[in-house]
């Protein structure tokens, strides 16, 4: 028997069996460890170890100090949490989905999952974030320029197809604002991937003079149910039953308030006047213009007999500004873009990226693009 207040254990065992604790073998006595508390086992620091989730406040602060976050609190990316995300992808955790500039970081499934966990995504969002990463890595998107530029361009993500309802995205009232978990966290996850994998950290690999609120999250779904025309993914050749992700380099959205127009032409003229401004990138290097039209505006135009193509053609044709204004943007104007003393802000009707989203109300949002420096990308989401 062990003496009172002196537990004796066999140091070759784990020390947790009753026999070891109770058996006072002579050959053990010379190595008897002594402890002065109520521990059951003398060979370990503790008798029982519980693993608990890290303190979110502590991890958020530590990650923030390492410049891994956007400044807001994060969900600590523990192995268990990350594994739950990886259950939703057909990729192995180490599969490299893309190499992201400017740092040329390897976007593996696991790194994407870690950043998605941090952003507050649900595990089922993992394939969406992975596809966003693949989309922004296409050459024509020019992630190098989009990430590094002094221009406040963000990456807007538009989701189409059945996935909208499956993951509970908001395509209606307030879809560009707060209040929806998927919209908020998927966009945030992309931003985390850009900072942590691509190296687009403000002042390091992201040189935006002011940055942009749209760099926190800029993600929404198209309101396909109230869209009188083909939705974006159908326009781009996908089946309505396919789900897609579209990424477009775009500034923060700017409102177009038109409560009076009753004809397509009047309403589109309001949009055109709002879009055609000196100082946007498009004014001196024409490129894509994102138009996020409210269902009510779309209905007015459609009831006037206009197709989506008509709308795109009209906006393209009439969105032009005087050369003297266009020339203020910075780069030397390309002579081929000057037509009768004016410069169009888009290169063709296709540059008018028209989607319908939002709730009741007579507003449309426009986002100027990155000029001709980036082309939007739409890819199907394969699970």
């Amino acid at each position: 028997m062990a003496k009172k207040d002196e537990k004796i254990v066999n140091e070759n065992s784990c020390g947790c069996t009753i026999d070891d604790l109770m058996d006072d073998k002579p050959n053990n006595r010379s190595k008897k460890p002594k402890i002065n508390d109520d521990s059951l086992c003398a060979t370990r620091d503790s008798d029982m170890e519980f693993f608990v989730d890290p303190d979110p406040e502590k991890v958020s602060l530590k990650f923030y100090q390492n410049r891994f976050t956007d400044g807001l609190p994060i969900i600590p990316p523990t192995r268990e949490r990350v594994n739950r995300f990886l259950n939703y992808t057909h990729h192995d955790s180490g599969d490299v989905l893309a190499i992201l500039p400017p740092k040329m970081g390897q976007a593996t499934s696991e790194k994407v999952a870690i950043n998605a966990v941090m952003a507050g995504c649900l595990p089922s969002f993992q394939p969406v974030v992975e596809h966003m990463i693949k989309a922004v890595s296409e050459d024509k998107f020019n992630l190098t320029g989009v990430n590094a530029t002094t221009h406040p361009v963000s990456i807007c993500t538009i989701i189409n197809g059945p996935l909208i309802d499956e993951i509970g995205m908001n395509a209606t009232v307030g879809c560009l604002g707060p209040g929806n978990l998927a919209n908020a966290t998927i966009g945030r996850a992309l931003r985390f991937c850009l900072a942590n994998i691509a190296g687009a950290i403000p002042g390091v690999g992201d040189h935006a003079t002011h940055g942009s609120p749209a760099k926190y999250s800029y993600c929404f779904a198209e309101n396909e149910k109230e869209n009188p025309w083909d939705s974006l993914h159908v326009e781009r050749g996908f089946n309505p039953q396919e789900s897609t992700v579209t990424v477009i380099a775009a500034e923060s959205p700017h409102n177009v308030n038109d409560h009076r127009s009753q004809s397509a032409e009047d309403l589109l003229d309001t949009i055109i006047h709002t879009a055609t401004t000196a100082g946007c990138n498009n004014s001196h290097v024409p490129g894509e213009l994102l138009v996020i039209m409210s269902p009510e505006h779309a209905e007015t135009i459609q009831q006037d007999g206009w197709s989506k193509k008509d709308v795109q053609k009209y906006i393209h044709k009439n969105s032009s500004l005087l050369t003297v204004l266009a020339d203020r943007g910075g780069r030397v104007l390309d002579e081929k873009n000057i037509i009768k003393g004016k410069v169009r802000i888009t290169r063709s009707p296709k540059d008018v990226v028209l989607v319908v989203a939002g709730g009741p109300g007579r507003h449309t949002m426009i986002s100027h693009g990155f000029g001709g420096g980036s082309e939007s990308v739409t890819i199907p989401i394969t699970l």
Partner: protein
Amino acid sequence: MRVKLTEKDVLNPVGEVKKKKINLNPLPYDFDQVSLVDNTKPGASIILKVLSESLGNREFLCVKKPAGAPATDQQIMKASASDLAILALGDCGSCASWVVLDAIRLERRGTPTISIFSDHFAPFARQLAESHGMGDLRILEIEHPIAGLGNDEVEEKAFKIVSNLLYILQIP
């Protein structure tokens, strides 16, 4: 009984970078033709003009390329026809990125390059070149800012870097 509480580890969100190394082409001992690659940023053409005038009686080939996007293959091919290419101007994030990356494209084609960056964006340009395997890309710095200045002011800043250009080229 003693109970220990341990916080679970958290995983690192930072993407790994696979190091690579691309060799820089040596500058020619002497050269007849120089490509001046102008990304159309304000002041770029003035800087290139001042620098080219300092190089004496040589042939210059002007190539214009987009600022925030890659040069087209044709533009790269045209620029690579010379013995040396001088690229300007990296004075913002996207244009600096594409001066670096287009310079690397030219180096890969065997054309030695010298790239001009404003001193504010030169550190980023070096990091980017390093990420792409060419940490020793030849960079010539000019005082920031360039955009927003009058032609005379840009010229004045360009004159200040002429001696550095001649030093790099070992021209007495």
